[in-house]
């Protein structure tokens, strides 16, 4: 497999020198010792400087329609995606981003418990899919993927960030905080809320994950940016509605939200959306990359499966933040802002009525 040399960080080169089969054996092992070893090596790598300012990151944004409720079939689809990317003229990407609920489809209702998997299991099966598609000695690459998570009986709408290759590592799991439970949505009935938004170091920059509605709230992006994220990955599943204009209204809304949030925080925002219909609800893909100037770099059609390829330079984050120092201004005012939040929380009587009144 060929890969542009510009994507190779020092730690990646080191990983390449390791015997390829060792990591594969470790992946197949399901006991805790191997996972701990893997986690230790991942932490060691993360302790190194994560990025250089000139680092570029090659991305693949995958929008597809999972087979409803069929986890095995969807891992096979993912394997096919990996195989297809092998032959892409841009070379194999550094990070492959999949939508929300990629292993099952989004609207599964009480079926969540049947399709949910532990994050470690998903990571292992992704690695297996990568090995099957690319060969056991493939070069490492990273994946962001949304799925329903089973954490010892507690269910979440989650997305993981994992490195696949000879030294696989599950680097982070984000659990969706903002669970839409209105109108066509009923998430909080079936899954629990996540509690934190974290930024974390990867071989390809410091990043954060927000899932769908998480990213509709500007404060989520603010927290990710304050924690140092250069890239926010957004696995999403947005049912299309509002056909009064040339594109569904939710596509326009998402683009506007991302444009403003990316420009305000000087951050890359990478959105991968489900497509296809589920019980009459059609998801709008429109997977896109929004640059840190609020500049839309690329966007897929809202319908139909597609893979979007693009390469970003992390230096753009610094340039954007210098040109529009809104994030710096926010940091300067942070104590006053948080005091206002605290006051607002303190002033709310417990059991205050929801702002949702009608319809």
């Amino acid at each position: 497999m060929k890969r542009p040399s510009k994507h190779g960080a020092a730690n990646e080169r080191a990983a390449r020198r390791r015997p390829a089969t060792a990591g594969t054996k470790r992946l197949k092992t399901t006991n805790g010792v191997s996972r701990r070893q893997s986690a230790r090596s991942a932490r060691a790598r993360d302790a190194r400087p994560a990025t250089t300012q000139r680092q570029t990151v090659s991305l693949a944004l995958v929008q597809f329609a999972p087979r409803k409720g069929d986890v095995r079939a969807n891992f096979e689809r993912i394997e096919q995606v990996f195989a297809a990317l092998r032959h892409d003229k841009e070379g194999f990407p550094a990070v492959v981003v999949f939508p929300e609920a990629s292993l099952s489809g989004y609207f599964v209702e009480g079926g969540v418990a049947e399709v949910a998997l532990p994050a470690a299991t998903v990571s292992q099966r992704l690695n297996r899919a990568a090995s099957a598609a690319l060969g056991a000695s493939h070069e490492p690459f990273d994946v962001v993927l949304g799925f329903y998570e089973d954490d010892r009986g507690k269910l979440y709408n989650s997305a993981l960030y994992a490195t696949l290759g000879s030294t696989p590592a599950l680097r982070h799991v984000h659990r969706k905080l903002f669970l839409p439970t209105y109108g066509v949505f009923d998430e909080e009935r079936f899954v629990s809320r996540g509690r934190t938004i974290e930024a974390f170091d990867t071989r390809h920059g410091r990043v954060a994950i927000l899932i769908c509605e998480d990213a509709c709230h500007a404060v989520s992006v603010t927290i990710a940016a304050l924690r140092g994220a250069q890239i926010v990955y957004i696995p999403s599943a947005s049912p299309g509605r509002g056909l009064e204009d040339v594109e569904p209204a939710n596509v326009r809304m998402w683009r506007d939200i991302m444009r403003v949030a990316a420009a305000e925080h000087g951050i890359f925002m990478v959105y991968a959306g489900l497509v296809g219909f589920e019980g009459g609800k059609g998801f709008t893909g429109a997977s896109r990359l929004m640059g840190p100037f609020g500049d839309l770099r690329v966007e897929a059609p809202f319908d139909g499966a597609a893979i979007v390829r693009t390469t970003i330079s992390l230096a753009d984050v610094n340039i954007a933040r210098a040109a529009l120092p809104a994030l710096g201004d926010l940091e300067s005012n942070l104590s006053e802002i948080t005091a206002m939040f605290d006051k607002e929380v303190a002033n709310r009587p417990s059991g205050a009525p929801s702002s949702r009144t009608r319809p």
Partner: protein
Amino acid sequence: MKAHALPVVHAPPPDDAGLRLDPVLARRWLINFLRDEMVNRRGKKVAIVGVSGGIDSAVVAYLCAEALGAANVYGIRMPYRTSSPQSFEHGGLVIEQTKIHDIVVDISDAVDGYLRYEPKASPNRQGNVMARQRMIVLFDQSAKFDGLPVGTGNKSERLLGYFTWHADDSPPINPIGDLFKTQVWQLARHLGVPSVIVEKPATADLIRGQTDEGDLGISYPRADSILNRLLLGYREEEIIASGFTPPEVRLVVGRVNSTHWKRHLPTTAMVSTTAINEFYLRPVDY
């Protein structure tokens, strides 16, 4: 500068945003829906459409022909002996224009076979028997051609309860069920449905001389505007204040509120913690 010299910018009056429709986008969306829900999800390539000669079934026939190919669509005309000959002709026009298969099943014998036992049945009851008989035909034809009946009910009549329960609403998929009647008109013009069909008064053609608007007591454009506001969450007094009379608002609200049951599956007595669709929740495509 004098205050009156400042240019004043007036906001346009609010329109019925929920009723606007981009027909190009709607066509693309609904064709994707038909292909995805029928072929990809259910593995069915053949559509069975009851073609009445009215605008709703015409739009569905056009969409199905484009989505699946005319050779995979069967237009079924099902006249009763008192049905309007004009409706039959208009149905034929749709079939001719879309080049879908033309099948005629006269339901008179089947309907009369039952009504012989109910000679005093009211026109409404007779109409319901005809509507349900037509569904028997559509479902049987779908079994014959390994296809799927495609629904033709629009959002206005669904909300107003202006349909026969377990008849018009029974096909498993429906591309226009979330379009108000006035939006169906917009889409029909874009699709090229013959103007003689688009511009004629809508009728269920179950009773001679019947029209939808005559039955409902309000025009579709006004009913749709009220329905749209109602569903968005505006209260009756707010709708009246936006230019509607109290009687017409009450008429529409009354019809909606008295027909919620028609938009649901039968009510089942719950006796367990595993009651279907109460505790045991799985989506239709799971």
